[in-house]
């Protein structure tokens, strides 16, 4: 299969780490008529096996580290991770809290960091578009064998 399809229509999986909801509702706002990311072929999916890009809002903690890891592992290659908001980047205002382990990059590799508290829809869309190029590069680097073969 030609993976150019991915570049034209990346599917997003959204997971809320320990976010305050501020970034989450902005991620959802991206899908709605004013920002309308669907015009780029982007669809929000609930199934990690359908997803190309993982959007994570909020930092990680003891209890959600396994969840984040599992979601990441379930996604098929090539995949990209976008950390949305300052909490997902470094822990932000909550970095000193006892139950915050820090940014998402402590657990899984992050490709794009989107700044902001809360991140604005424009910057989230920009982050996703940046992730598309990374996806394309990752695809090039992949060995020329069919997906699903070990």
């Amino acid at each position: 299969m030609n993976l150019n399809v991915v570049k034209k229509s990346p599917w997003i999986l959204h997971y809320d780490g320990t976010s305050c909801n501020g970034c989450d509702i902005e991620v959802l706002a991206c899908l709605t008529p004013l920002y309308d990311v669907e015009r780029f072929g982007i669809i929000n999916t609930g199934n990690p096996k359908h997803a190309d890009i993982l959007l994570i809002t909020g930092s990680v903690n003891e209890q959600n580290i396994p969840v984040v890891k599992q979601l990441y592992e379930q996604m098929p290659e090539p995949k990209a991770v976008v950390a949305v908001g300052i909490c997902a980047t470094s822990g932000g205002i909550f970095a000193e809290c006892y139950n915050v382990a820090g940014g998402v990059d402590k657990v899984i590799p992050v490709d794009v960091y989107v700044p902001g508290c809360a991140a604005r829809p424009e910057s989230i869309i920009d982050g996703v578009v940046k992730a598309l190029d990374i996806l394309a590069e990752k695809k090039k680097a992949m060995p020329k064998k069919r997906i699903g073969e070990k």
Partner: protein
Amino acid sequence: MGNRTIVPFGPQHPVLPEPIHLDLVLEDETVVEAIPRIGYIHRGLEKLVEKRDYQQYCYVAERICGICSFMHGMGYCMSIERIMDVEVPERGEFLRTIWAELSRLHSHLLWLGLLADAFGFESLFMQSWKLREQVLDIFEETTGGRVIFSVCDIGGVRKDISSETLMKIRTVLTEMEKELKETTSVFINDTTVKLRTKGVGVLTKQMAFDLGAVGPMARASGIEMDMRTQGYSAYGKLDFKPITNDGGDCYARTRVRIKEMFQSIDLIRQCIDKIPGGDINVKVKGTPNGEQFIRLEQPRGEVVYYTKANGTKFLDRVRVRTPTFANLPALLETLKNCSLADVPILILTIDPCISCTER
């Protein structure tokens, strides 16, 4: 007796943007019991008071939740003001009320959209969120932020709204009211929507009281409880009545929230008519000493702020009891004997805010 199975629900579930985990014990298709597992978003920010002084903590309080952010900041500021005997200028109080009611409007619209999404009415979800953007535009114009404003401060507010902008808000809201009527009439009158919400998750008045439900959840079961009637901020000078409904089901909760949106628009209009001139904040000097309980009405219900200060810059304790925390027992009770297919709608009708709940 049918076969018993346990179905895990969440933490990552398409219906909810936030993680909560429920173990649903099923007998065939019927839920017998729901066991919650929370803690996915627990940050421990109540303990952050030890590292932030009482003025810095305002920023932390605003980030307890991104949806009712303004009212969290307001509740925290009010508790400190009460301890320090600070009198907020009247214009400041009116501005707070305007932003608080706008927050309620945006929160209820957000919830309507998510509800529509939960029963698979995609275009209604889009419509509700499209309307919500107009409220966010007002926020952006008046505060500079779309979600978190950082405009509430101990002693008043940081930004004023000019009278031209107030007039503009009025026009926008009048226009919006028409569209809102059209969109919400689908939730009230559409047969397919009614089939999903009517008679689902009934919470009787007695049950609601026995389970300590608050906010729209309690009001939709016929309990007249609205902290705004206590007249904090500028609410004492406004004319309104708590909205109740005797249905107790998902449909009643939807109706209560829809009516509350129109009530919010009306309250903002009253504020714009009655807002006095003058200062918007007072300078706060010294450090707080004492303790205080403050209760506010958030979009999701009653929130309790407890602050204890010891005369230094650092507070002894800030404790927040958020509405979803109080509504969880009622949710677990309504989940019993419902069918598995209704679980997402039931969880949504309490308007859960997990990041508030776990702090």
